[in-house]
């Protein structure tokens, strides 16, 4: 690794740790209703929402009501996006005249954005109108992230409340998340991005005359370059912040109008990990013991850093297949070198590999380089980070509740070792919680592996593959790993815009999101009812290095045991082939 690479990675991680306490503390105050300065500014807006909808801010919901509210609200959003996409031809703001979206693509997209996955089987600038992007997708970017954070807030109340029947109100948690956290932050980020050159306009596509005319394959001479623009900055800000990841343009944040400079790149990369990392501190604050939050964050970094190093070094080493040609892949003062296929010069190797690791550690899924062209092990890193269940930072809210479910399993395993009833944060963990935790941990891998198997044995599945042999298998495995962990990034060579992939993918996204939210809320409801067990000498501390190691061990062992056989058929065999010949 070059000095500049190390510096950039260190700066990123350092700033990330530095923001955790202030931002996490602020979010804790928001959920406790104690953010005073923000309340003075935005409180009227919050109260207006409650008044219009006749929501009682003091309302309390049982876990089942909370879950039902989450599901109906998400279902309403899903249907709305589907209708918008199908009817966009007869709606306003369609300067490029893109026409209606095909039913299977509209269904996939609606599920994708409602579930915070933001998988995109379509090519954005040629498929969606500004109207659909704004009223459908931008809105889902906000509310799907807010849904995840609201469910986290409810889950945390399961620990902080004692002998209680309820978990708070979904409407209040949702409104507060949007009004106090997501909107103000997105506004600041969007304007920063415009200052760097991210486009924000409702005007027609621009065009300019080419300096050197060219011949098209059809034989005619091309003299014009049409430049697709649009209201991108507002959507890009929340796509990063809300761990959504769905690009305004087809190539996402590799597009110069979506991510024009290394500075905009840093802002976007930072925004995508900011909330999931800070929520660890929020959690600690809300349960009254910030050491617990720091321990979870430490566990995340312990997994993140080695994988980041692997991705960077693999990409920097270049592609051995080009080794025999008169091509210079070595890093020097004049070039970053390395595996540059699918990467942009302004980002080079370091920030492309950092982005790939960050975006899949979080369940963001935006990209600034084409992951399909990464080296085999460089591509294994993002794939495995998703397969670990999106708990290393993970989605906004969903990452942390996923990690807390792993913490339940960790204390359970520890309890088995010493023969004591396991406890976490003063709550006894019993059969019911463990059953629900198993569901949360087992459903996504089952979806990934079954869907991958189906695609491998059907013509419809195999036809989509864009690269030969092991890499083609990796494309399929990546697609379902991404959708069943609500990530949304892709090995984009896979032609996924078909009824087969759209439908099967939508099932994975839907199952992985809501099949987890319901058991997570069930655990929260059950924990809230319990009394707190006083600490004794036999209580396992869950804030020290031993527990961090236990937790990391559980996450890695579950992830490894489930996926190594599949990974061996894809990236691992490809790595051996690449370096063997």
């Amino acid at each position: 690794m070059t000095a500049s690479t190390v510096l950039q990675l260190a700066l990123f991680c350092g700033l990330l740790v530095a923001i955790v306490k202030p931002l996490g503390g602020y979010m804790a105050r928001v959920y406790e209703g104690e953010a005073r300065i923000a309340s003075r500014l935005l409180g009227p807006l919050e109260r207006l929402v409650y008044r219009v909808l006749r929501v009682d801010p003091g309302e309390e919901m049982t876990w089942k009501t909370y879950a039902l509210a989450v599901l109906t609200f998400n279902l309403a959003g899903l249907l709305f996006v589907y209708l918008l996409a199908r009817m966009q031809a007869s709606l306003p703001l369609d300067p490029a005249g893109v026409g209606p979206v095909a039913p299977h693509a509209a269904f996939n997209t609606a599920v994708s954005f409602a579930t915070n996955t933001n998988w995109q089987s379509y090519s954005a600038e040629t498929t969606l109108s500004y109207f659909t992007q704004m009223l459908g997708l931008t809105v889902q970017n906000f509310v799907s992230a807010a849904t995840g954070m609201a469910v986290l807030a409810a889950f945390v109340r399961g620990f902080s409340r004692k002998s209680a029947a309820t978990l708070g109100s979904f409407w209040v948690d949702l409104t507060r998340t949007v009004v106090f956290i997501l909107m103000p932050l997105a506004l600041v980020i969007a304007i920063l991005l415009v200052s760097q050159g991210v486009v924000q306009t409702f005007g027609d596509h621009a065009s300019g005359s080419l300096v050197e005319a060219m011949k098209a394959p059809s034989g005619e001479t091309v003299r014009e370059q049409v430049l697709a623009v649009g209201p991108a900055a507002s959507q890009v800000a929340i796509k990063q912040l809300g761990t959504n990841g769905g690009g305004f343009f087809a190539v996402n944040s590799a597009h110069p109008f979506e991510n024009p400079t290394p500075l905009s790149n840093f802002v976007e990369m930072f925004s995508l990990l900011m909330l999931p990392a800070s929520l660890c501190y929020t959690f600690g604050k809300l349960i009254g013991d910030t050491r617990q939050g720091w321990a979870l964050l430490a566990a995340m970094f312990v997994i993140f850093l080695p994988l980041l190093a692997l991705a960077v070094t693999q990409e920097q080493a270049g592609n051995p297949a080009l080794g025999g040609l008169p091509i210079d892949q070595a890093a020097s003062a004049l070039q970053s070198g390395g595996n540059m296929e699918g990467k942009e010069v302004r980002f080079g190797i370091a920030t492309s590999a950092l982005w790939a690791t960050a975006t899949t550690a979080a369940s963001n899924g935006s990209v600034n380089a084409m992951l399909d062209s990464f080296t085999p092990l460089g591509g294994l890193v993002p794939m495995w980070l998703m397969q670990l269940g999106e708990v290393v930072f993970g989605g906004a809210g969903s990452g942390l509740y996923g990690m807390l479910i792993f913490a339940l399993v960790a204390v359970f395993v520890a309890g088995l070792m010493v023969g004591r009833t396991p406890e976490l944060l003063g709550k006894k963990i019993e059969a019911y919680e463990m059953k629900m935790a198993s569901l949360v941990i087992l459903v996504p891998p089952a979806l990934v592996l079954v869907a991958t198997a189906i695609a491998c044995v059907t013509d419809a599945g195999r036809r989509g593959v864009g690269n030969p042999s092991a890499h083609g298998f990796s494309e399929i495995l990546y697609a379902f790993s991404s959708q069943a962990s609500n990530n949304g990034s892709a090995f984009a060579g896979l032609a996924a815009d078909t009824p087969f992939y759209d439908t099967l993918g939508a099932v994975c996204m839907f199952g992985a999101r809501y099949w987890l939210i319901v058991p997570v809320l069930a655990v929260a409801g059950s924990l809230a009812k319990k009394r707190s067990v006083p600490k004794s000498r036999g209580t396992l501390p869950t804030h020290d290095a031993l527990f961090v190691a236990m937790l990391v061990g559980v996450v890695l062992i579950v992830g490894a045991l489930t996926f190594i056989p599949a990974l061996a058929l894809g990236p691992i065999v490809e790595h051996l082939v690449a370096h063997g010949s």
Partner: protein
Amino acid sequence: MSFDSALEPQPSPKVVVTVASLAGKAIGMLAVLTLLTGVLYPLLVTAVAEAAFPGRAHGSLVVEDGKVVGSHLVGQPFSEPRYFWGRPSATAPVPYNAGASAGSNLGPTNGTLTETARARASALHAVDPTNTLPVPVDLVTASGSGLDPHITPAAAEYQLRRVARARGLPEDRVRALVAAHTEGRDLGLLGEPRVNVLLLNLALDRVERGAGVP
């Protein structure tokens, strides 16, 4: 506690009422939040963008002699020896199609990737046969967007003598132009040093016109 005792018995009529009222609230909440985040928020961002950064909000267009010739941020295809060439582009049907961005998505072990890179290296060699240095990797690999406006300083240095010769300009003059269009790392730290190909080529054309060369 057993699985069953965690479920509280609820009379079914009450559940029905709850679902209906929840659905009403859900639709209302969606409508209000759509207004806030789907209308108010993007309009607010657009208003601030128009006021503070109008040029950038519309695509950082480059205007030369009163007409738009592209964007500062988007590359263009160049194939004549007298221009610096940019990154290879995988957009369809023509390279640098800024209406449909795309990468090649060729996997690292795909034979097509190797063959394409070999052909690109040969094409560069064909227009500059005396240059036997290895080709910088960014000149033989497709960018992620297909619209990358930049090449590395190494790629500019590699092409410098060819461009100078094709234009009959002294090498030092071209080198000075390249240096003037090289951007360092942002804040001295972020990203990579890079050369904006379109702006550099426009500057070269301007120099030639100013010198009276047709």
